[in-house]
């Protein structure tokens, strides 16, 4: 394991920020620390960087215990949430700062900085000051500055939080590609599940100072292990009387269920291919989502969300709708169970 935390604890006053955190991260991977605000994800990152000192527990980087090694000596690059670019220095001087501190030769610094500037695609902007750059450009400079001293580990605190939606998507792809090009082990913090799923090789899901689940994005999305994971990842609605939905029975020990939009099939009344397993709901509202229509459907006293193709005949508000729920995540206080629609299973087996 390249980065390893063992039973790390940290309290701020009476607030327990980290509670027996143990994680391990492999070399060369891009890992997302995902969680709501206050879940401890940033504290984990800052502890690894050495900006925060854990109360107890051990932190290893490349097999070395780093608890007593100062931040500057850990070989870690850090990208701050608001970039923290040196505002009185040009792009060049920002990137060169760490190299100058390390007393590299002038030639080496110039070579390295121009290398990085071409990596981030900001040729010609060397003499600009941070306030003359756009959000995305600032982010790239912060990234280059962190990489300049050749760190072994790159830490990014909410790297996309301060950028507007359109550029964020572009930058995500860019960051992912660039990191894999450089080949550096990277950990980034985010509260945005979409971001974590899209960018990372592995997600570490945090909540209340603890690790909820660790796994690949697909694993966490498909097989949430804790109720929190099931609720936080994906866009779900909770339902308690889930036995009303056709094709599902009460499973002992599970009092509620989560319905995700991708579990919901929608059709005009009577037009469903599986008429014996549909539930009748009412369209409450619909939102144009660009590539699809998002329907909010009133069903058994709750509101579920479904995606509906724009190719199909549109629904009016108040119109009846046939809904098929393919799958449910049943949950209680500590467990999650993924259950398929019984009727659909039977139909499929008949067809086979």
């Amino acid at each position: 394991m390249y980065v390893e935390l063992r039973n790390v604890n940290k309290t701020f006053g009476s607030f327990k920020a980290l509670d027996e955190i143990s994680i391990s991260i492999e070399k060369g991977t891009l890992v997302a620390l995902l969680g709501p605000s206050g879940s401890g994800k940033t504290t984990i990152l800052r502890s690894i960087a050495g900006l925060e000192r854990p109360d107890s527990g051990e932190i290893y980087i490349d097999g070395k215990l780093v608890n007593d090694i100062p931040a500057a000596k850990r070989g870690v690059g850090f990208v701050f949430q608001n970039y923290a670019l040196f505002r009185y220095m040009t792009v060049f001087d920002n990137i060169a700062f760490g190299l100058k501190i390390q007393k590299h030769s002038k030639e080496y610094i110039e070579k390295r900085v121009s290398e990085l500037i071409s990596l981030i695609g900001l040729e010609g902007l060397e003499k600009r000051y941070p306030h003359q750059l756009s959000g995305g450009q600032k982010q790239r400079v912060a990234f280059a500055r962190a990489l300049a001293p050749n760190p072994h580990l790159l830490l990014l605190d909410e790297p996309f939080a301060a950028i507007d939606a359109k550029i964020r998507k572009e930058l995500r792809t860019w960051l992912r590609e660039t990191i894999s090009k450089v080949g550096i082990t990277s950990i980034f913090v985010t509260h945005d599940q979409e971001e974590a799923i899209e960018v990372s090789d592995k997600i570490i899901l945090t909540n209340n100072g603890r690790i909820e689940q660790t796994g690949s994005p697909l694993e966490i999305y498909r097989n949430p292990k804790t109720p929190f994971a099931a609720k936080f990842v994906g866009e779900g609605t909770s339902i308690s009387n889930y036995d009303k939905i056709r094709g599902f029975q009460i499973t002992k020990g599970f009092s509620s269920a989560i319905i995700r939009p991708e579990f919901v099939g929608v059709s005009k009344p009577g037009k469903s291919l599986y008429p014996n397993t549909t539930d009748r709901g009412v369209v409450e509202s619909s939102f144009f989502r660009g590539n699809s229509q998002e329907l909010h459907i009133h069903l058994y006293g709750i509101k579920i969300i479904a995606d509906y193709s724009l190719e199909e005949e549109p629904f009016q508000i108040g119109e009846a709708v046939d809904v098929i729920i393919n799958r449910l995540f049943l949950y209680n206080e500590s467990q999650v169970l993924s259950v398929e629609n019984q009727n659909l299973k039977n139909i499929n087996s008949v067809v086979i």
Partner: protein
Amino acid sequence: MKQEIKSSVTRIVLIALCVIFVGVMLIVPLASVLVYSLREGWEVFSSTISDKYTIAALKLTLYAAVIAVAFNTIFGLFSSWAITKFRFKGKNFLTTLIDIPFAISPVIAGLIFILIFGRIGWAYDFFNNHSIKVVFAVPGIVLATIFVTFPFISRELIPLMHSQGSEEEEAAALMGAKGLTIYRRITLPHIKWGLLYGIILCTARALGEFGAVSVVSGKIRGKTNTLPLHVEQLFQEFHLTASFAAASILVLIAIIILILKNIVEYKGKKEENFRVR
């Protein structure tokens, strides 16, 4: 419509009140100082301001001000750094202590030094044995000036450094920069206009100090008389024109300082806008 009329009336009344107030309370007195000092003609004016006692007083005033400002600049940089960048016990108490000179009457400040360094003071013997005269001598004047101008620079810097947080410094530290480098390359550029502003305010206050200095000075002409004291002395001796002439030097310095202050404020703001944008 009614609202508009009302607000425009309010506007005129408020502006007029401000102008009248500033005029009566500030402009007229300042102007009359200049007019009065020139009342008996240029000859008297120039002979007063070139009088050796006036020159000596001016020199002493500037001397005390320069030392006080230098001292308070160093102290201001250290204290604001300590207070904004570190967590420690008694921080709020320390911040309050720095404000003491704002709250205390300068006369009392002067008396404190008499009580410490004067003939009755506990430190008198020590300094006397080393033949250093503090009270009724230049060191006392410098001390008193430092005391009354103590909070100016740190008060200017503390909120400024607070608002700028420490992420940039953290970033620099993470790259291995040492404290002094961080201070010189990151912190100082942030605070330079605020610092300059504080220095200007501090200078203005130091030059004009009367109360505390008056207690410790002894007012020996040509030796321990500062310009404000000199003005008062001339006034008490009914040399009205001379007194006002000396005062006009102070007014002139004040105007120069005001202009400098405005330039600094303007530049600082311009840079601030630049940065935010």
